[in-house]
């Protein structure tokens, strides 16, 4: 334990020291260059550490994964589209894909809808910051901890015994249940239960961003509409909502990406059993339970392909923003 502590201490002090020395050293090296060359070389020296990390840990492995998706399980021979062929014919893979679509649609709807509702409501009360903290705090904890919390909510005891999960106890008071929520495959109820746990975590994120945008709306605009006799609903429909649309789009894209990549909740709460599997967990299983590196890479490529359009959308939005600036 102490040697770990020493290593960590060395790293925390040492790494910044090395990086600061590096930047200082670049200036010494630049002195040797002719005056005209300096501004041309300098930016690349400042960018070099970041570009090295990005290249090594994002660009190179992503390309590597795409290549591996066309190879056999050990990456020794080329197998063409075999891995993708497996994917489209595997019931597990198709079921994961379907679940990811459920995640994408409903997590986004729930999070953006609730986030908007809460942001608008909370704007009108005096305990705004307390309410926001309550909604927001789940975002700070790990998805693993959130899973433990929600496993407790969904707890199931056989009929006749006292129900220990609040959800089953609640529906029990009106004579329903008990339901084994995480094993209930009909209508993908179990997947929805996982999505609800994730909604609990991410609504605070949507709320904070939407709330910030809401505060940016000119209050005179709303006052003018109210003076003209518009009721609160008309003010919301006619003025607030249209002004919030760009913000809602930003939040929605972030949540869509989160939904596509969702792993921790599924891994911890159900391990993908009872048809709750998602792409990210399927990939983990193929990789480490079956050592199918080619197939796992193909699964990752499917995920990547799903995300690429969002990436271009993000870049387009970013450029539009920069143009305004």
């Amino acid at each position, binding site marked *: *334990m102490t040697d770990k502590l020493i290593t960590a201490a060395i790293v925390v002090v040492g790494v910044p020291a090395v990086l600061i020395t590096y930047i200082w050293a670049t200036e010494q090296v630049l002195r040797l260059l002719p005056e005209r060359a300096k501004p041309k070389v300098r930016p690349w020296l400042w960018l070099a*550490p970041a570009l090295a990390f990005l290249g090594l*840990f994002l660009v190179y*492995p992503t390309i590597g994964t795409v290549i591996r998706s066309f190879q056999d399980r050990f990456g020794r021979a080329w197998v063409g589209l075999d891995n993708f062929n497996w994917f489209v014919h595997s019931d597990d893979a198709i079921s994961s894909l379907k679940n990811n679509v459920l995640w994408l649609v409903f997590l986004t709807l729930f999070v953006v809808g609730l986030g908007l509702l809460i942001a608008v409501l909370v704007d009108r009360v005096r305990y705004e910051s307390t309410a926001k903290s309550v909604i927001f705090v789940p975002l700070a904890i790990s998805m693993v*901890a959130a*899973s433990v919390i929600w496993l407790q909510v969904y707890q199931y005891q056989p009929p006749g015994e006292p129900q220990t999960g609040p959800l089953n106890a609640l529906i029990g008071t009106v004579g329903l249940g008990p339901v084994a929520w995480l094993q209930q495959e009909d209508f993908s109820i179990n997947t929805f239960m996982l999505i609800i746990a994730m909604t609990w975590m991410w609504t605070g994120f949507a709320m904070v961003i939407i709330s910030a945008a809401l505060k940016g709306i000119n209050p005179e605009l709303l006052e003018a509409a109210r003076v003209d006799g518009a009721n609160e609903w008309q003010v919301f429909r006619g003025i607030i909502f249209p002004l919030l649309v760009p913000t809602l789009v930003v939040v929605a894209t972030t949540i869509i990406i989160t939904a596509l990549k969702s792993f921790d909740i599924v891994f911890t709460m159900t391990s993908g059993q009872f048809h709750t599997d998602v792409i990210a967990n399927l990939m983990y299983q193929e990789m480490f339970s079956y050592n199918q590196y080619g197939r796992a890479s193909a699964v*990752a490529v499917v995920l990547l392909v799903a995300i690429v359009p969002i990436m271009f959308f993000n870049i387009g939005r970013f450029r539009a923003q920069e143009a305004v600036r």
Partner: protein
Amino acid sequence: MTAAAATAPGQGGRRRNWFSRVRGRIGLHGILIIIMVVWLIPTVGLFVNSFRGGTAYSDSGWWTAFFPPFNFSFENYSHVLSQQSLGTNFLNSLFISVPATVIPLFVAAFAAYAFSWMEFPGRNILFVAVVGLLVVPLQATLIPILSLFASWGIAGTFLAVWLAHTGYGLPFAVYLLRNFMGSLPREVFESAAIDGASPVTAFFRLAIPMSVPALAALAIFQFLFVWNDLLVALIYIGLVNSDNLPMTVTIANLVTSQGGGQVFIGAAAFLSMIVPLIVFFSLQRYFVRGIVGGSVKG
């Protein structure tokens, strides 16, 4: 409503208006309080259960603990801290998170400064590429990096996760910092250059001190991201060296193992939440700023 107001102007209309306003206020507070309660109940339930020893958690609901006989104990917590490896895992989480926050902060600050205040061909294209990398799923990088780490002989070490988290955190870090540094007043840097200050001096004396809010937001974000991470630690450490596991992986294993440890999971989860909650409540302002300032963390 409008018809009623039109036919009965004056006193009656005003009173009706007052009634509907009060009803609206009650509805507003009612909805908000219900939402807040729904948001709190899951956590409260687990929290109460973590103080109930023995088999109480599977015999009766946590809400029964509020009625006598009161049977609260620290049994679960003392068990988790003494029997399980969670004490070590807690320290491992710290050892992983702190360097994995410090390294990308520096690397990103250099890059953000270059993107903001240096002219070079391809600057915009390169920055757009960084923004594009924001959404690359971690999953698409796991296998090649794992084999890379294995060939370097660092799979299972802290170094592996420090490096990986630096790479994964950089797009967001560069994006957030560049947006902030780029919005600093140009005159400050121009007059510094005229006074003969080198870019290094301008960076450390001007850009860094002026960017403290963004740096703080980023540090909190990256720290929480790493502390709460499961996948990266599971793959680069979990498969090779179980001595270095952070809390998230151990708790996830406890949950999925279905073994005897079920009673203690609640206590373990709360121990893992202490640090994020302290960070969150003491630095909430910066945390919110980090989210609002760059809402596209991939």
